[in-house]
């Protein structure tokens, strides 16, 4: 249970700072008094969590309400994993937990004690792209790029699980990942090429 003291002191500052609020400069705008009520909110409930993320062990204090997705994006600043729906419908947040593809939005962070997490940021080896990333580039398998991390993580899992024997099987495995720009054909082209190349994934 940490952080609440810090937060309270910050709130004290806010209370002082926002005694008067006007939205713009100029004397014609009436400053409106908006004192923040003197509630003292409950402390943010936190718990220790040890994770291995992209090969690096991390000892964290996490909000017990955090999903792995929000932990990655908001607490750790690892924004390569995307939020597209936060309810497991779209696949934008697909990561690997202990090698299994998982919707990061559906996994509470604290349930992952000791787990190994791989995200898009952990796929390339230094400057060398993962074969799937290179294939996505080559086949223009994205437009806006927002679903791309999830598509690539699913695509890697698709190959690892041996579910890429033909295009129909690839499409069936990949149907949990929406691409609203409609780059589906180019995505399947990329996966098929990596599968056929026999590249080590």
């Amino acid at each position: 249970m940490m952080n609440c003291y810090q937060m309270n002191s910050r709130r004290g500052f806010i209370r002082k700072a926002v005694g008067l609020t006007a939205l713009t400069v100029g004397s014609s705008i009436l400053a409106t008094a908006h004192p923040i009520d003197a509630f003292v909110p409950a402390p943010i409930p936190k718990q220790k969590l040890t994770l291995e993320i992209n090969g690096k062990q991390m000892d964290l204090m996490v909000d017990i309400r955090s999903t792995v997705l929000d932990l990655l994006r908001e607490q750790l600043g690892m924004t390569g994993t995307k939020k597209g729906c936060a309810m497991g419908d779209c696949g934008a947040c697909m990561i690997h937990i202990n090698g299994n593809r998982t919707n990061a939005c559906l996994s509470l962070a604290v349930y992952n004690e000791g787990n190994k997490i791989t995200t898009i940021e952990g796929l390339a080896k230094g400057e060398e792209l993962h074969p799937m990333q290179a294939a996505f580039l080559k086949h223009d398998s994205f437009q806006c790029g927002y679903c791309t991390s999830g598509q690539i993580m699913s695509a890697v899992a698709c190959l690892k699980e041996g579910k890429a024997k033909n295009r129909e099987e690839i499409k069936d495995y990949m149907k949990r990942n929406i691409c609203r720009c409609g780059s589906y054909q180019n995505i399947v082209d990329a996966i098929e090429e990596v599968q056929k190349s026999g590249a080590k994934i």
Partner: protein
Amino acid sequence: MNQTIFSINNPDERVDGLEKVTGKAKYTAEHPLPNMAYGVFVCSTITKGIVKNISTDKAMAAPGAIDVLHFENCPKVPGYQPSAFPDLKNVSEWRGLKVFADNKVRFNGQPIALALAETIESANEVAKLVEVSYQEESFETDFDKLRKDPAKLKTGSSYTRGKSQAYKEAPFYVEAEYNIPIEVHNPMEMHATIAYWENADSLLLYDKTQGPKSTQMAVARLFGLTDKNVRVIAENVGGAYGSALRSWANVPAAVIAAKKIQRPVKVVLTRPQMFSLVGYRPQSWQKLGIGADANGNLMGISHYAISNTSRYEDFREGIVDASRFLYKCDHVDTDYKLLPLDLSTPTWMRGPGEATGCFALECTLDDLAYKLKMDPIAFRVKNFTEIQQESKLPWSAINVKDCYEKGAELIGWKNRKQQPKSLKDKDWYVGYGMGVGVFGAGRGTSTVRGIWHKDGRVVLESAVSDMGAGTATAMVKVAAAALSLPEDKIKFMMGDSDLPPGPTQGGSTTTSTLGSGVHLACEALKDLMKDMAKELHPPFKETSKDDLIVENSRVSLKSNKEVAIAVGDLINKKKVDFVDVVKTSPGLNPRDIQKATNSFSVHFVKVYVHSKTGEVQLKHVVTTGDAGKIISPQTARSQMLGGAVGGIGMALTEEVKIDHSTGKIQNATLGSYQVPRHNMIPHIDVWFTDKPDPYINAIGAKGLGEIAIIGFAAAVSNAVFNATGKRLRDLPITKEKILAAKA
């Protein structure tokens, strides 16, 4: 801060591709600011009425709570009430929902409060704990019922050329009604805004927008700030398809909250909120009547449409427009009305009104072709015209016949049988269908800065953003061609309103508008280099500029390219690090060139329809575009693929369902609102005429984002008819509807 994109080695790869496949590309909600607070909307659970009371006691006691913003404690916003701020110059009234301005509820899901907390988890919890009580009023959301009451309709626009309803006098005619439900853009990136008041009168915004400049101006005028004191950054836009053409409630909410709590505030919509807060394709009803003589000459087209809008804004689009001008016909009448409902305001969604209108037009033409016992392509070729029928101006370029021919070849049209139910594969009926799309090809104003560095790199800058079309990639190609430079020497910077004013990305105009600006800036850079060569390089002192050429970073004699000086040497001689130009490329008024300017598409599909279950499977798609010169073949192809996928959704799955007893959307998730997924997508072939339009701009390119989807749903319906003899006029075409339809 702005996007810096260097071209990479493979000429086909997107210049921003590396960032996107490695997860490094930053989207709006991904910019961390110190001491940032999170804002989550609390949305109305009623459809119409007033908020009686908001209790925040429980909410404010929750972990991490900072504040709850709502109408009772919302600071005064100049753009909500300009007359109350006579001293502020740069103010205009906010268009659209004035969030937290009053206690009125105008639609289900309207933001009532913004819960502010230290973390996203806390903000979600605080939002859930805000207690709102309402006084409900009766409401109207049932489009199908209310559109039949003329008293409920707002007059839109009417048009008559020749006789109205002339189709009824033709020996052969078809009359039919079409219904399209509300569809939602649903880009994968949710709309988001981060607002940060850097000081009392200057604001930094990270915002999901298709137009950094238009957002800058809208926000400046909302708060009475000078434009330059509002900086809008949209480094990457994770899809939009029209939803980010204007600023929605998340923008003022974040800005007001950031002012109120004196901290940066991030507001990200939830997926359910994406269904009611950032626009949608309006629900529509259409009636088409088309008549022809026995030889297939069109004798009359009548197209009537109604689409919904909200109670607080009118939204109109070009539903009936294509019927007025696309095919040769002397007698055309159209009428378009609006039905205001207690829903949020619709907006442009890919291929806006034309996608709606061409569905009805192209299905009705297909019906008439069948009645005339004509091949649908032959029928269209019969009524082909090079003169835009409404303006009577010749098209600047129209190669749609090439699309008919090539598309027919690629889909295997020769295997199509005129009589439905003629082709079967086991339990599946097989059918072929086609549909035509058309959209305006404009050219707006754009300003581009071109910078030539002494190390030979060229940087081009404009305040445009890119929702995925590949704008930077295309602009690098335009510049590389204009400067005769390798692409890896050129970078394009965008996504920041501080850059020279660029266009809003929309209406299939970016390549034409911005490409013209880039081309002009590059021409000016070359001209500047020639001037510098004459001034600083003695051998060229007496040479005419016409005899000089700039290519591969050298200025040389046209007649002898060995006589040359490197651009970098010229810049060094000037004792500067770079030279630059800023050029504004003017917009095009088609009247000035006495031409009509449009892009065209023809889509072909082969479908299987299960004879027992009615299930529709697309087996093959061919999509062809006539959009002038194709600047960036790979990204253009991807855009066409995307349009076809969007068209598959429109045709087969996408439908917002509203419970009219509550006014609430019943399927506001991506699990229940079905968008196309991998397993629905057949092989898609893309083909372009790729012929430069000689009039539209200096680069010969027209837009293709809209035509990629316009006409596609008709091709599917026409193929289903060809397969089964059943005409499906209400989208989406579901197996239930197919089973219920009569052949």
